[in-house]
Structures are given as structure tokens and as C-alpha cells.
């Protein structure tokens, strides 16, 4: 048996899915968090049934891609759990009535049941049930309230196959609302006042700038302190063990080079030695993980609060000049964590052109947290002059490239039309779960690549391939970017992992200008292989080739200009 979870965007379908199946999925407070079908299993009366989390849709008239998916799913589903936002009953009922016109059993879930009281809404769930003639179950998905009831009433789901015209639907909804819902006077809460303030430009822009500054500061604060007080001390404890191993293996043997790496002035240097057990562990755990943790902690709060759609509204006018919707800010922000989810989330944009621009800009300009952590280590000592130049350069490239793409590519950006959810206080449980999911995917997906990267560097050095490529690439690397030709090794590793690549710049003894050029070039010239694969899936071969050509040209150009200026 297949059970479909269907409803408008941002009504909590994924939260209910998590509760039913025990499978953790991303839950956030903005429409379009779920971009693809998610499947899970649940036990129902000793039977294993399949639960499918369908991306949100407002109607069953297939006008957009998400809606087409939803309509197609109806053909394979056996029961629909229609998740309804109780705080917006009227407009949610439109989809409910449409679902009741299909020949499939339906059960209605009134989610956000805890919120209606503060909003001065009273809903008579029993009466609603009588009107719709299907079970209606109030729930609070984030706290699991009502979930057991939902499961126990699943067998009562009923099919009706009513037939309404669009007009009849709205008049039926009007009738139902008049009878089951009462609105009473409500006081405006602090959060509601803040909702208005954060979209009005005069207050919204300062609020946004403060939030961005706070985010930047929090990420560095958490990251630096985790490194100084937790991870560095841990690696101090680990050092004697790996030093012992180094002594046993003896410097100079191939196995020593691969596992421990090169000794710097007779000692192991976790950043520069380039062994699997030294740099291969130190970079991901002690240099990157702390910042990844800090970034995702802060991002989770931003996502769950409902701030992102407001940010999207504020920047909408600017992003339209770059050929995108305000919502394209979401792939950019997710890309700051990791470019892979960033590329996937371009699906919230409705046209191919927008997705192409957003994915290209994100892949070229947005450094992932792994890379940013290493840039913090590299340019941090130069303070605002180093880090500021790096970030401001990328921001200018982002604006210029977007503006250019919007001019050159045929087609227009459709007008923005989106829902802004209310501000909600994030639940600690959901934040922690989401943070853990992201950390876990970093640990399982990034670390193998880091180790592979370190291994490949060693093999390439041993075989002398790096020397050969660096001779060949010298005209570009030395001539255009003003970097030593040894920097080529870092560019090669950058295909696999940007963090290891940035780390490899350290032993080259570059000055600040060269470090900035190298960091910018490493960010821009090519996405890492994981992102490349996802881009291939999302854009297709042709667009990926275009996108890659744009990357290479802009990396050459921007690196060259920076080299001339710095």
C-alpha cells in the first residue's frame, strides 16, 4: 500500500513524514524545502506500508512542474493524507476539495493546531469532518501531537469522487468556513510586528545587514573556539601516536610519505605534511568541521524561523537584474554550506533559464564552508584586508556575471509570486536533527574525498606527473595569475576537494596578494567533482558545458585582473 502526503507548500508534510516513518528529512520554514519525492516505510497493523512525501502544490491543475508530479503520484497512490495548514484553512481547502474529487480515499490532517489559538482562530474539527465526510485529525507535527490518532484513523480514509466546478468549489469552501471557523479579536504579537518590520525596506535592510554580520561573527566565533579549545587539543593528544608511527616507518619510504607525509623541519606538520593520517584527518576534522558545524547551526535557525522568504523579498529587485527571483538567494545560502545541496535547491526556481543562472553563479562564485574555513586559516591573519578583498571580489563577480548572463541569455524572468510564512520560534529538536543530518553527510561524503585527494597528491608527486603538468600550465599560472608554478598541484586537487587545495597553498610561501588571487581562482575555476556531478544531473550536458566554459573564462579573467591590481 502507498500512502501519499499531499498539501500546499510549507504546511509541514515533511515533518509529518518524519514522524510517521522515522526517516529524517529536511524540514524548514519556507515553501519548497522538499524538492523531490521522499519515500519511507511505516508499520500499520503488522503490514509495512510505503509513505511518500510529495512536494507541495496549491492545486491539481498541472500548471507547474511540482503540480505535475503531484497529479502523477495520485495515479500510483492508494490513500492520500491531505496535510492542511489550520492557520490558513480557507485556501488550503481548495486542494482538499480537488482531492475529494479524485477517486482515492482521503484523510485530512489539520497541522499547526497549536498556532491557531494565538491567531484568534477557532476551528470545529468535528463539524469540518461532517462537512467533508472524511476523517479530520488535528496535529502538531513538530511535537508529534496527534500523530498516533492519525495512524489509528488511517483505515477510515474515504473516497468521494465529488464533481465541482471551480466556482462551486469556492462557494462550497465559503460555506464550510462560515460554519466551522470563528475568528476572534487577536492582539498583534511581537513576532507579527517583526514580520512587517523585516520586509519594509527602511527597517528590513538594516535588519538584514545586522543578521548577516551576526551570522559571519557567530560562524567565526564558534569555529575558532571549537578549534582552539576542542579540536587542536585533541590532535595534540594524537600527535605522539602518529609521531611514533613516523619513527617506525622511517622518513623517505613510500608508505611513510602516503600515511604520514613529509616532515617539515623534522616534525609532523598537520597542515603541510600531506599524509593520510596527518593532513588527511586534520583538515576535515580540525580545520573544516568546526566551521561547518557553526555554519549549519546558524543556517538552521535562519531556515526554521521563516526569515529566508523575507530576505528573498528584500533582494528580489536586485536579483531580477541578475536574471533570477529573490528566492534564488536560497541556493546561494545553501551553497555557502556545500555547493551540492545548493545546486539541488535551484529547483525552487520555476524556469530553466533561472536555474541555469543560479546554478552557474553558485558554482562559480559561492565558496562552500569547507573552502571558506581554509580561507579563514589562510587569509585570516591578514584581517579585513585579506578576507575582505576575497569576499568583496567574489561578490562583485557575482553581481557582474549575473548582470551579464541576464543580458546575454534569451528569455525573461517571470514575476515573483510567493508565500511568506509567519515567523516561528525554531524547535530545538528539529534544529538538532537537521544539524546532525548535515554533519553526518559532511562526514560520510566529504571525508572520503579528502582522503582520496591527499592520496592522489602523493601518487602524482611520486610519479612526477605534477612537475610535468606544472611546466605545461606555467604560462597561465605564472603569466596570468602571478603564482608560482607549484600552485598547479593545488588546482588539480581542487577538482576533488577545495579545502585540501587551499591548504596546499600554505607551504608555497605566497604573499597576501598571491594568496588572494589563488583563493579566488580556486573558488571560481571549477566546482568540486561532487558538485559537478549534481550540476550534470540538474542542467544536462549542454548547459553544463556552457556553465563550465563561463567558469574557466571568468577564473582566467578575474585572476588576471586581481594579479594586476594587487
Amino acid at each position: 500500500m502507498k500512502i501519499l502526503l499531499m498539501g500546499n507548500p510549507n504546511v509541514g508534510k515533511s515533518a509529518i513524514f518524519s514522524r510517521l516513518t522515522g526517516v529524517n528529512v529536511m524540514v524548514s520554514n519556507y515553501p519548497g524545502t522538499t524538492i523531490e519525492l521522499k519515500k519511507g516505510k511505516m508499520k500499520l497493523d503488522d503490514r509495512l506500508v510505503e509513505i511518500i512525501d510529495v512536494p507541495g502544490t496549491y492545486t491539481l491543475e498541472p500548471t507547474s512542474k511540482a503540480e505535475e508530479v503531484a497529479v502523477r503520484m495520485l495515479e500510483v497512490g492508494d490513500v492520500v493524507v491531505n496535510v492542511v495548514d489550520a492557520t490558513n484553512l480557507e485556501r488550503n481547502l481548495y486542494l482538499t476539495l480537488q482531492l475529494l474529487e479524485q477517486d482515492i480515499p482521503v484523510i485530512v490532517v489539520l497541522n499547526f493546531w497549536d498556532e491557531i489559538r494565538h491567531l484568534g482562530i477557532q476551528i470545529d474539527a468535528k463539524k469540518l469532518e461532517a462537512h467533508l465526510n472524511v476523517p479530520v485529525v488535528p496535529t502538531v507535527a513538530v511535537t508529534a501531537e496527534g500523530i498516533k490518532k492519525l495512524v489509528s484513523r488511517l483505515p477510515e480514509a474515504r473516497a468521494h469522487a465529488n464533481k465541482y466546478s471551480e466556482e462551486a468549489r469556492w462557494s462550497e469552501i465559503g460555506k464550510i468556513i462560515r460554519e466551522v471557523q470563528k475568528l476572534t479579536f487577536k492582539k498583534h504579537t511581537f513576532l507579527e510586528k517583526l514580520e512587517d518590520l523585516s520586509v519594509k525596506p527602511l527597517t528590513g535592510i538594516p535588519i538584514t545587514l545586522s543578521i548577516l554580520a551576526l551570522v559571519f561573527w557567530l560562524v567565526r566565533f564558534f569555529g575558532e573556539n571549537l578549534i582552539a579549545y576542542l579540536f587542536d587539543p585533541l590532535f595534540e593528544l594524537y600527535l605522539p601516536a602518529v609521531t611514533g608511527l613516523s619513527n617506525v616507518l622511517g622518513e623517505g619510504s613510500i608508505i611513510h610519505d602516503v600515511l604520514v607525509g613529509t616532515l617539515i623541519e623534522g616534525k609532523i606538520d598537520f597542515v603541510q605534511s600531506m599524509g593520510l593520517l596527518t593532513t588527511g584527518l586534520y583538515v576535515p576534522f580540525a580545520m573544516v568541521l568546526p566551521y561547518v558545524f557553526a555554519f549549519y547551526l546558524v543556517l538552521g535557525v535562519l531556515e526554521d524561523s521563516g526569515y529566508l522568504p523575507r530576505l528573498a523579498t528584500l533582494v528580489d529587485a536586485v536579483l531580477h537584474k541578475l536574471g533570477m527571483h529573490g528566492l534564488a538567494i536560497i541556493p546561494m545560502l545553501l551553497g555557502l554550506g556545500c555547493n551540492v545541496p545548493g545546486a539541488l535547491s535551484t529547483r525552487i526556481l520555476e524556469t530553466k533559464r533561472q536555474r541555469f543562472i543560479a546554478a552557474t553563479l553558485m558554482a562559480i562564485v559561492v565558496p562552500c564552508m569547507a573552502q571558506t574555513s581554509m580561507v579563514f586559516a589562510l587569509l585570516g591573519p591578514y584581517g579585513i584586508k585579506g578576507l575582505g578583498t576575497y569576499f568583496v571580489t567574489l561578490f562583485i563577480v557575482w553581481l557582474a556575471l549575473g548582470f551579464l548572463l541576464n543580458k546575454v541569455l534569451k528569455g525573461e524572468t517571470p514575476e515573483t509570486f510567493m508565500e511568506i510564512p509567519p515567523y516561528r520560534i525554531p524547535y530545538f529538536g528539529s534544529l538538532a536533527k537537521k544539524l546532525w543530518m548535515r554533519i553526518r553527510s559532511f562526514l560520510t561524503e566529504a571525508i572520503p574525498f579528502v582522503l582520496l585527494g591527499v592520496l592522489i597528491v602523493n601518487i602524482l608527486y611520486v610519479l612526477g606527473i605534477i612537475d610535468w603538468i606544472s611546466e605545461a600550465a606555467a604560462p597561465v599560472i605564472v603569466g596570468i595569475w602571478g603564482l608560482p608554478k607549484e600552485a598547479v598541484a593545488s588546482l588539480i586537487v581542487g577538482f576533488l576537494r577545495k579545502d585540501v587545495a587551499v591548504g596546499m597553498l600554505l607551504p608555497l610561501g605566497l604573499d597576501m596578494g598571491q594568496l588572494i588571487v589563488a583563493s579566488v581562482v580556486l573558488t571560481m575555476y571549477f566546482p568540486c567533482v561532487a558538485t559537478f556531478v549534481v550540476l550534470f544531473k540538474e542542467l544536462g550536458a549542454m548547459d553544463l558545458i556552457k556553465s563550465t566554459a563561463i567558469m574557466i573564462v571568468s577564473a582566467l579573467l578575474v585572476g588576471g585582473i586581481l594579479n594586476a591590481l594587487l
Partner: protein
Amino acid sequence: MEVSLFDLQTGQKAIISRLKEGEMFRKKLASLNIRVGKTIRKITAEPLRGPVVIEIENTEATIGMNMAKKIVVEPLEAE
């Protein structure tokens, strides 16, 4: 006196009286319950030809400038 949502004053409440475009437009707006006869409040308009933000019952929505020009409203007296 009818004005477009775009021209409606910030903070003002109004009733939607008609839409200056056809079927698809009407359906699109209806997905967020923005329909003729509904009361809305204009929260703000973003600068640089940016979108208009409105509140309708418990929903807030961002509406592109050109769409806002096609939504005709009847302003309500200030409370």
C-alpha cells in the same frame, strides 16, 4: 475610488475589486486566496521596482510589481 495594488498606499487596507488579466492570472492568485472580494493590507513595496508585500487573512505574499499593477482594489477608510 479604485486604484491598483501598486498605487495603493503602504499600510492601507483595501478590497480587491477586479483583476486586469484573465484565467491563468486569476488562478495563480487564487492559490494564495487572493480573490475578488477579499480584504488585503499592503505591507510595503520594495524599492528599485521591487515587489509589493501584502497580507491577506493569515497569509503574507510577495507579488511582483507588474502583477500588482493588474490587481485593482477599493481602499477602505482608515480605521
